[in-house]
């Protein structure tokens, strides 16, 4: 199988990347396990068939291929360190429904990892493949404020897990999660373990169900409930674009510098290697220059009504 994609110079020149399986041509992976997060969201643990894709960083994504159906961009929701790849998928169309229904030992294709990352755990001169585009620095010593809306928690999870694994490296770690309803909160089984590991985790829902005793309201309302030192905080936001815009605006109003607010944008990623132009947003090709951008760069892009 060939994809027909050429390897762009920006990637080909990076040691360890050019010519690897899983970059232009999907690498074969096998479903190790599947866990339902919510009624329409599944986390797959994938193990490589022969050759794994390159090491990934928190915030990057892959193109997941359901053979015979199609390929979609999916956030990596696990941390690197082993051969397995953890990806969380919401069933919103034919390809994602097929991936969500994948059973153990089923084969899928994986290309990637692609795009920029949150910067957590990335140090200058660190080993591995440097993704092209703007490199965001590791906010060592800073407070981390992670704001997730819905399935947006998936690409933030590896940043959180990486930070919790190096707890002394960062200041306070606060996680604010907004969800449509209690039943649609992803990774509920892990929230307490994140708290035990030292994160202040707060959840709010748009619509309560009978028996819910937690917060009800939009996720931006939680911002006013936590102690934030604007000068010492780096924020990571992922969720629906309107939610990200409102959250970034609220954090900016508190005094957090736009360069210290990082958002993960999504468009119609196809090739993953900045060749096809489907994910273009203004002057940015999000599969290469994103998905993670700082708000200073993302703010004007979020105001573009249509391209």
């Amino acid at each position, binding site marked *: 199988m060939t994809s027909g994609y050429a390897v762009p110079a920006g990637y080909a020149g990076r040691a360890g990347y050019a010519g690897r399986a899983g970059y232009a041509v999907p690498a074969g992976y096998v479903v190790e396990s599947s866990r339902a997060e919510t009624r329409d969201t599944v986390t797959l643990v994938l193990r490589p068939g022969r050759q794994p894709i390159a090491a990934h960083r928190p915030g990057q994504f892959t193109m997941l291929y359901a053979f015979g159906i199609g390929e979609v961009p999916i956030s990596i929701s696990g941390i690197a360190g082993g051969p397995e790849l953890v990806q969380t998928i919401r069933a*919103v169309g034919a390809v*994602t429904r097929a991936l969500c229904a994948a059973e153990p030992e089923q084969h899928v294709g994986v290309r990637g990892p692609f795009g920029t990352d949150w910067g957590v755990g990335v140090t200058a001169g660190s080993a591995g493949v440097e993704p092209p585009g703007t490199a965001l620095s590791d906010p060592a010593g800073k407070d981390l404020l992670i704001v997730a809306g819905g*399935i947006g928690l998936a690409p933030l999870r590896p940043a959180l897990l990486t930070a919790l694994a190096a707890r002394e490296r960062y200041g306070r770690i606060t996680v604010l999660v907004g969800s449509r309803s209690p039943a649609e909160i992803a990774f509920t089984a892990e929230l307490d373990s994140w708290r035990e590991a030292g994160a202040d985790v707060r959840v*709010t829902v748009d619509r309560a169900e009978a028996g819910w005793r937690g917060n009800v309201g*939009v996720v*931006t*309302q939680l911002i006013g409930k936590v102690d934030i030192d604007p000068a010492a905080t780096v924020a990571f936001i992922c*969720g629906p674009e309107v939610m990200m815009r409102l959250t970034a605006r609220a954090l900016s109003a508190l005094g957090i510098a736009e360069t210290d607010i990082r958002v993960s944008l999504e468009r119609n990623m196809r090739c993953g290697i900045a060749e096809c132009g489907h994910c273009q947003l203004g002057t940015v090709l999000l599969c290469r220059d994103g998905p993670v951008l700082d708000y200073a760069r993302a703010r004007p892009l979020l105001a573009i009504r249509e391209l």
Partner: protein
Amino acid sequence: MSPVPAAELAAHPFLRGMPDGQVAQLAEVATATYVPVGHRFFEEGGHARRFWLIRDGHVALDLSVPGQPSLIVETLGAGDMMGVSWLSPPHEWQYGAEALEDTRTFELDGAAVIARCDADPALGYQFFVRLMTVATRRLHSSRIRMLDLYAAPGQTGGR
């Protein structure tokens, strides 16, 4: 319940920045309260005469549903103002309110606050700008929730 020193009342986010003399007028009609988890502040349909400035804790605004547990429409916490139905006819609570945690508040008498605002328009201006800010923020939040942002996108394509 206990009387409220004006300095303590002034520290509440709702009143932050209000001139001392105006805060002192509100402190005359405020009491400090502490309620345990499960306390019902008011019930839907009840006569609305007071409002609360929440100092800490967690309060749910709820609606009763026949045959089911009540539904929480919004939760409030430290720094929030609770209760606006006292302000205008029919002076009936539109929701119920229950403490989800032990909660400390400043409780203010609505009629007494209105009387002071009538007598001192500068106080009235300061008070109602703050009230309007709260109402605007809640309206904005309600509109955002109505958008149902976290619903699955209505895609019919290949994704």
